[in-house]
């Protein structure tokens, strides 16, 4: 017991101390989280009428974000597959970071769903055996099950792994490997279930297409890993944690394939709707061209298309893929592109025109955007905290003390300022340390 308490004390020390940049980052997130909480309070008091959702467009910004983030969470598996199935060492060491991203993303998903439902006080109705969960008929019930399962799975694996490293013990492969292998179908399942949620609705022809589940997976495998590449580059720059170029490049390659499939499937959808030219063309027309004078989403979707295609070229061409600047640009473009395409670009056209062909043009209200921002800040906060503990453990900088009870923190200036890095670089020239330093 004492050990666990000391471990927690150690994590508190780690998360409480850092560079100026770290304080600014965390402080900024805390401010956004508070604003988001305020927006949620307003929504709880006045009801969902403070959003711009109405009967005609009954799901909006919250569910758009939810859908996108389920994809990000699923993409953690992209790191696990090569690592454990193909025994690819360069990725093996960083797969844990992908799982921590999955945990943060799922936390955000759960928060978005809670923000969206009309009676959050009745959440217990969803708990199997306590309430009534309409499993297996309702796809939402499936989503509740698989999302929580995936969250628990990733938490268990990550915590177990890191906790053992903290104790300088080798994690038991017989425990971790089956769980890690199981997380592959689990990741695919969360996103397939979320896709089926939309797919199964005959009332909404924009979603009632078999291509939806494959498209979801393809776009998920673009957005999540792109975010991870950005995180890896940051970690490489600011800490002693080593991430090999090969690992980053392999992930970038896989993103290129995923984006190709995404673009191809999108092309297939566009062909089908425009060539057949049935009344079901209307939502796609609304999205890409505007419908009966309504075109709020048109500039957004074309921005997303341009971003996606540009990013695809960046990831495809080895030259731009290897260059760090263009790589970073590609990751940012793809993340934003998929966010738009799979968020508002997927959910809203399902409702425009509505089932009686009415057009209500939905744009999120201020409260919705503030609350969504607060939830994103919460997710980033959770991810920051998890990394703040995980990286020192993986580095060997945070482990149990020699007495076997207390904790030891080596390099606790985890997030170095430019001046500190230069100082350290000078020191390295004079006294090369035992471990090699980070890449340029």
């Amino acid at each position: 017991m004492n050990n666990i308490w000391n471990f927690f004390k150690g994590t508190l020390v780690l998360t409480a101390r850092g560079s100026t940049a770290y304080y600014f980052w965390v402080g900024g997130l805390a401010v956004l989280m508070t604003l988001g909480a305020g927006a949620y309070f307003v929504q709880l008091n006045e009801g969902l009428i403070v959003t711009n959702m109405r009967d005609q467009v009954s799901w909006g910004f919250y569910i758009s974000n939810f859908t996108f983030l389920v994809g990000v969470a699923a993409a953690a598996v992209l790191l696990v597959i090569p690592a454990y199935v193909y025994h690819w060492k360069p990725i093996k060491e960083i797969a844990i970071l992908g799982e921590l991203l999955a945990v943060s993303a799922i936390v955000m998903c759960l928060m978005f769903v809670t923000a969206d439902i009309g009676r959050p006080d009745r959440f217990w109705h969803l708990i199997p055996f306590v309430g009534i969960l309409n499993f297996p008929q309702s796809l939402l019930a499936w989503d509740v099950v698989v999302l929580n399962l995936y969250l628990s799975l990733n938490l268990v694996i990550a915590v177990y792994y890191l906790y053992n490293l903290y104790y300088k013990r080798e994690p038991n492969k017989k425990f971790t490997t089956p769980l890690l292998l199981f997380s592959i179908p689990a990741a695919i399942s969360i996103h397939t279930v979320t896709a089926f949620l939309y797919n199964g609705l005959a009332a909404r022809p924009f979603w009632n297409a078999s291509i939806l589940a494959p498209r979801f997976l393809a776009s998920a495998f673009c957005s999540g890993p792109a975010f991870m590449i950005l995180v890896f580059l940051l970690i490489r720059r600011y800490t002693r944690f080593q991430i090999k170029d090969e690992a980053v490049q392999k992930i970038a390659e896989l993103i290129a394939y995923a984006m190709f499939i995404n673009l191809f499937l999108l092309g297939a959808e566009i062909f089908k709707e425009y060539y057949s030219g049935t009344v079901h063309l209307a939502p796609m027309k609304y999205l890409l061209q505007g419908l009966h004078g309504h075109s709020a989403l048109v500039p957004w979707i074309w921005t997303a298309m341009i971003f996606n295609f540009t990013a695809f070229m960046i990831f495809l061409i080895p030259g731009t893929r290897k260059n760090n600047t263009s790589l970073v640009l590609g990751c940012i473009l793809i993340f934003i592109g998929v966010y738009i395409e799979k968020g508002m670009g997927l959910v809203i056209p399902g409702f425009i025109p509505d089932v009686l062909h009415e057009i209500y043009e939905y744009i999120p209200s201020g409260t919705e955007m503030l609350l969504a921002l607060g939830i994103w800040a919460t997710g980033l906060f959770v991810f920051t905290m998890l990394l703040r503990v995980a990286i020192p453990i993986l580095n060997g900088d945070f482990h149990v003390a020699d007495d076997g009870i207390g904790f030891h923190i080596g390099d606790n200036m985890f997030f170095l300022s430019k001046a500190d890095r230069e100082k350290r670089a000078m020191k390295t020239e004079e006294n090369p340390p035992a471990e090699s330093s980070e890449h340029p």
Partner: protein
Amino acid sequence: MCTKTKCDKNNAFQKSRRKVLKGLAAGVGALALPASNASASVWESFFQKHFRELDKAELQQVLARLESEYSKEFGKDVTVKATPPIEGVKFGYGLDLSRCIGCRRCVYACVEENNQSREPQIQWIRVMQLEKEKGVFLDAAEHYYNPAEVPEKGKFYMPVQCQQCENPPCTKVCPVQATWKENDGIVVVDYNWCIGCRYCMAACPYGARHFNWNKGTLTKDEINPITHYLGNRPRPSGVVEKCTFCIQRTREQPGRYPACEEVCPVGARKFGNMLDPKSEIRYLIENKRVFIFKEDLNTQPKFFYFYAT
């Protein structure tokens, strides 16, 4: 299916689960002392089980609690019934498109009878103005028509409300089974169980389901005090509602016509028991040109549009 041992085990489990929930409600209610009746009922309402799980005594308790809440809120005697379906009845509805003139009296009669919020406005019936030349072609539908007089030349009118489908897409998707189809064919919602996720609204092809985006307004003068638990009782914020074929009227013995049917000045609306060979609805299904709205979706509505002439 439920084998004997499985059913028994399930029953035993359900009994113990009921005991736990009852205990929780009582315990937390007791903890709320010295509380006014209001907070005790808040806890009771929080822990209230699904309508279909309530036994007779619990149901009476719930109805009594609701009656006292509503009566207090509206300052008049409100009754809440839970009349079960009548045996051997499957309701059907007919709508004569050759007669409807689009006057919308059905919309407002429904609002009055079923205690819908006036502000923000909720209307269970939506009348579409369509063009005779194009037939039932929704792209040319006008929902907000407001000419000096109806019917307008060259137009016809199609009211849409819950079709009480035999194969409802909405009941399939509800994650907590807050909406289901009863034996007389009416698709109902337990307003105290619904979590407001609005998945059923996305699933409904007829736009028949409506959401309480906030508490809504209903005054003492506006409220119809004769209500049904699954029908027209005042709804809380954050739950879904829809047409229930005036369940508070139609399930009585003898059962009254729904409000929309009664108020229609041209007699375009027909209602009855489809299992009764002598009913109006059977006659029109057997003898008139009947069609189903969005038939290709296989929802099997019990709402039949027809042309009498």
